[in-house]
């Protein structure tokens, strides 16, 4: 004990020495004193000396306020340290301390009252501040904030013209970066729905609001600042576990994200066009709802509902609420029933009513069945076609009416932007799919004893939601393949002079009307010799076959092909890459491989942006028109007589670039009357499907066109060789060819 008292004594001495030279605002010194006080507080727990304990706590509280510049009078603090020394002296002499420290505690803003155990208990109190000494507090109290936030805000009339170039740049950065950050929130929220208490995820959602609040404060974007602040407060409560992030809270966060996006886009517009930065959006109601959610109550407090119903008197509710402050875990309804102020039946019906109120707010986000969206896309497609038909109508074309043309042009603009909007409704960023791969790579690496990192870019690239769902499986396969066959073991990599840790790069971007997804690894690359050997032993090719590099690589997409040395649980069972290719072709996409031995491989998937529209080559056979999907087309040419030959058992062949390709006569396949008797009378289009090539004989190329795909309906759905129909600009129907089905038909004949 005496040793402890000695330790306490030397600590108090050090504090006393520091306080003499302590200047207000000398933060490092204050930090030092603070740490010493914390040490004393810890030790004080071991000696049962109430006055000493209270004084240390009081000094800590006062020092905190000094640090936060809420106070600047060092006097009471110095006095407190002196008193601490005298209490300590009494301890050393083993006599009770007889002084009254209450006036000092009061000065230090520490109110205490004895509780039933006879100990002193601290109550919240503010230090007495002599008049004229009061400092401007740095933060308003939260209550005041919420009240002002609940009102509508004055238009802040900051005009963009007054901005300096530097400010403009900062605002521009702010817009871009904030929107990017807000985009991450939605993904995090999905994660959070799986695990509502995951601190890391809550933090990831909290941070964008926090930074937007911070920066908007600098830029005088008051409304953005206010809203971000409310949302941040809500999330702060979630971080501390005071509220659970679910249902209504998630709705509120999403609404805040949307509204912030809107306002930040408003800033963007203002930067481009001039005008006020703070668009006329009223954030009041939303801020109020967020603040209501803090209290865990709905839009309307239960007490208020009960009063309105006449089930309970207003005074009783107020009394109940003050009771609730003492026992915060109790619900107001329960307290009122306990106090016999109202019946439980009334409370239950009031609770129901409260739930109804809470549901009554209108969401800025609406969930829509994707079928309805598809339908909308279909209809807009037809609208586009109808208006094209209208424009091409002979009577309209010959009408010499300026007004009519003007109206038609307007109609044209409206329909095309309507179509664009309808299309974009189904687009979602590929990010969520990419992010699922992070975990996959980590698990795969762990299981195989390799070190693998994943780098992503272009996650914001948007793609049709139906495509995204279909894309997940093939991507998993390819990443597995890259980890399993591509990336080497760490030691092997080191020997090859590479970083022990391999990397897989995921990249998405738009090119033309397609979305391109690259899966690249910096592993060992594909081994051509082994692929050939394997393909020969599985009878996929014969020894005579001379294959180009890309044809060799493409062998890995053949069914039954696998080069894994041993069967791991990851891949190597002969299932895999053929599934990938099929899945991607089902999406009307294609996949290509590039590989450099020792440096790695790249798989490039290109997919149409949407499944509703297809880019095709419109061709004519006799009087009929067909659409060949552009993705399948390799080349088109008018064959010379000497390129044509027939081989027993193989039928007609066309020689192109030194290779003999089987010829398919479209007129025969579809039983129509074509113009071209000989191949050199017509045109040939070389197409590819499943690694096989064929030449299609037809009469004329009519041009490229983007068409909206229509299914042929129930009865014709399974027609071989036809993928669907499309209405052309002149209102007639063109049939879209299904290339792999076409090959099968030709095979059978």
């Amino acid at each position, binding site marked *: 004990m005496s040793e402890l008292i000695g330790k306490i004594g030397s600590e108090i001495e050090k504090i006393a020495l520091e306080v003499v030279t302590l200047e207000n*605002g*000398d*933060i*490092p010194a*204050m*930090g*030092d004193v*603070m*740490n010493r006080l*914390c040490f004393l507080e810890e030790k004080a727990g071991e000696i049962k000396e109430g006055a000493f304990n209270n004084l240390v706590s009081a000094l800590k509280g006062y020092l*905190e306020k000094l*640090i*936060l510049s809420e106070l600047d009078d060092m006097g009471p603090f110095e006095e407190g340290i002196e008193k601490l020394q005298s209490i300590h002296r009494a301890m050393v002499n083993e006599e009770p301390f007889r002084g009254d420290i209450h006036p000092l505690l009061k000065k230090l803003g520490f109110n205490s009252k004895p509780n039933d155990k006879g100990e002193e208990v601290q109550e919240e109190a503010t230090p007495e501040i002599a008049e004229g000494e009061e400092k401007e507090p*740095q*933060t308003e109290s*939260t209550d005041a904030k919420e009240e002002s936030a609940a009102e509508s805000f004055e238009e802040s009339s900051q005009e963009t013209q007054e901005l300096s170039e*530097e400010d403009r*740049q*900062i605002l521009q*950065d*702010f817009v871009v*970066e*904030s929107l990017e*950050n807000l985009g991450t929130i939605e993904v995090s929220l999905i994660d959070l729905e799986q695990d509502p208490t995951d601190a890391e995820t809550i*933090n*990831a959602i*909290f*941070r964008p609001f*926090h*930074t937007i*609040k*911070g*920066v908007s*404060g*600098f830029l005088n974007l008051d409304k953005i600042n206010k809203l971000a602040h409310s949302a941040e407060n809500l999330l702060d409560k979630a971080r501390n576990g005071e509220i659970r992030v679910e249902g209504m809270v998630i709705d509120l966060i999403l609404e805040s994200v949307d509204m912030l996006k809107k306002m930040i886009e408003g800033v963007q517009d203002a930067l481009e066009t001039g005008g006020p930065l703070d668009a006329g959006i009223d954030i009041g109601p939303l801020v109020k709802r967020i603040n209501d959610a803090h209290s865990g109550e709905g839009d309307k407090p239960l007490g208020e509902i009960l009063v309105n119903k006449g089930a309970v008197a207003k005074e009783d509710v107020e009394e109940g609420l003050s009771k609730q402050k003492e026992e915060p875990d109790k619900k107001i309804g329960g307290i009122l029933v306990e106090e016999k102020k109202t019946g439980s039946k009334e409370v239950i019906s009031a609770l129901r009513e409260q739930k109804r109120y809470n549901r009554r707010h209108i969401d800025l986000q609406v969930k829509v069945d994707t079928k309805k969206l598809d339908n909308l896309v279909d209809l807009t497609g037809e609208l586009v076609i109808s208006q094209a038909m209208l424009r091409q109508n002979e009577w309209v074309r010959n009408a010499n009416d300026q007004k009519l043309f003007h109206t038609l042009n307007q109609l044209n603009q409206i329909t095309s932007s309507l179509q664009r909007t309808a299309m974009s409704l189904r687009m979602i960023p590929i990010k969520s799919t990419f992010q699922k791969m992070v975990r996959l790579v980590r698990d795969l690496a762990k299981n195989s004893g390799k070190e693998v990192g994943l780098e992503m870019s272009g996650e914001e690239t948007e793609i049709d939601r139906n495509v995204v769902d279909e894309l997940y499986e093939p991507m998993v396969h390819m990443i597995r393949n890259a980890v399993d066959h591509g990336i080497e073991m760490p030691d092997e990599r080191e020997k090859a002079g590479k970083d022990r840790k391999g990397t897989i790069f995921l990249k998405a971007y738009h090119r033309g009307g397609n979305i391109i997804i690259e899966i690249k690894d910096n592993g060992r690359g594909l081994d051509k010799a082994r692929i050939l050997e394997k393909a020969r032993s599985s009878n996929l090719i014969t020894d005579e076959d001379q294959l180009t590099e890309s044809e060799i690589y493409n062998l890995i997409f053949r069914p039954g092909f696998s080069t894994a040395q041993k069967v791991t649980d990851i891949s190597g069972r002969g299932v895999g890459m053929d599934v990938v290719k099929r899945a991607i072709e089902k999406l009307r996409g294609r996949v290509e491989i590039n590989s450099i031995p020792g440096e790695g491989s790249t798989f490039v998937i290109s997919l149409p942006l949407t499944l509703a529209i297809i880019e095709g080559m419109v061709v004519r056979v006799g009087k009929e028109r067909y659409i060949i999907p552009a993705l399948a087309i390799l080349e088109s040419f008018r064959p010379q007589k000497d390129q044509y030959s027939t081989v027993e058992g193989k039928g007609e062949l066309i020689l192109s670039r030194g290779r003999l390709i089987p010829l398919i006569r479209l007129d025969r396949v579809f039983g129509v009357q074509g113009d071209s008797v000989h191949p050199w009378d017509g045109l040939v289009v070389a197409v590819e499907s499943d690694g096989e090539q064929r030449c299609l004989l037809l009469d004329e190329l009519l041009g490229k066109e983007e068409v909206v795909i229509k299914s042929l309906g129930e009865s014709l759905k399974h027609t071989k060789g036809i993928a669907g129909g499309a209405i052309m600009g002149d209102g007639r129907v063109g049939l879209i060819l299904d290339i792999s089905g076409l090959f099968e038909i030709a095979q059978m004949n």
Partner: protein
Amino acid sequence: MSFDTSMKVLVVDDFATMRRIVKGVLKQLGFSDIVEAEDGNIALEELKKEKFGLIVSDWNMPNMTGLDLLKAVRGDANLKDIPFIMVTAEGQKENVVEAVKSGVSNYIVKPFTPETFSEKLQKVFGG
């Protein structure tokens, strides 16, 4: 100005716009040698590479918070004497006290003006 503006300053924040703002304030005060870092880990790497005269760091960052960075700096014999200013948001008093206890040279509350920043620097460099 009673502080040496030729020193190298490290600005740590995960939000690029915020770094830009802090840099702008520093430039207004005459500093020109400013290095940026996106989080505590990157900041530590920079600190190991060169000698800095001042660190200005945000509190709330992924991977490594400003507080962890402060503790790491104060716990490293080569770095422990570098003045460290923590940028905090209003209303986060417990953070300030936490930072002060961990040996921060001073703190500044967002949003701040060049004047307040200058005052804090005066205090840090004993001006």
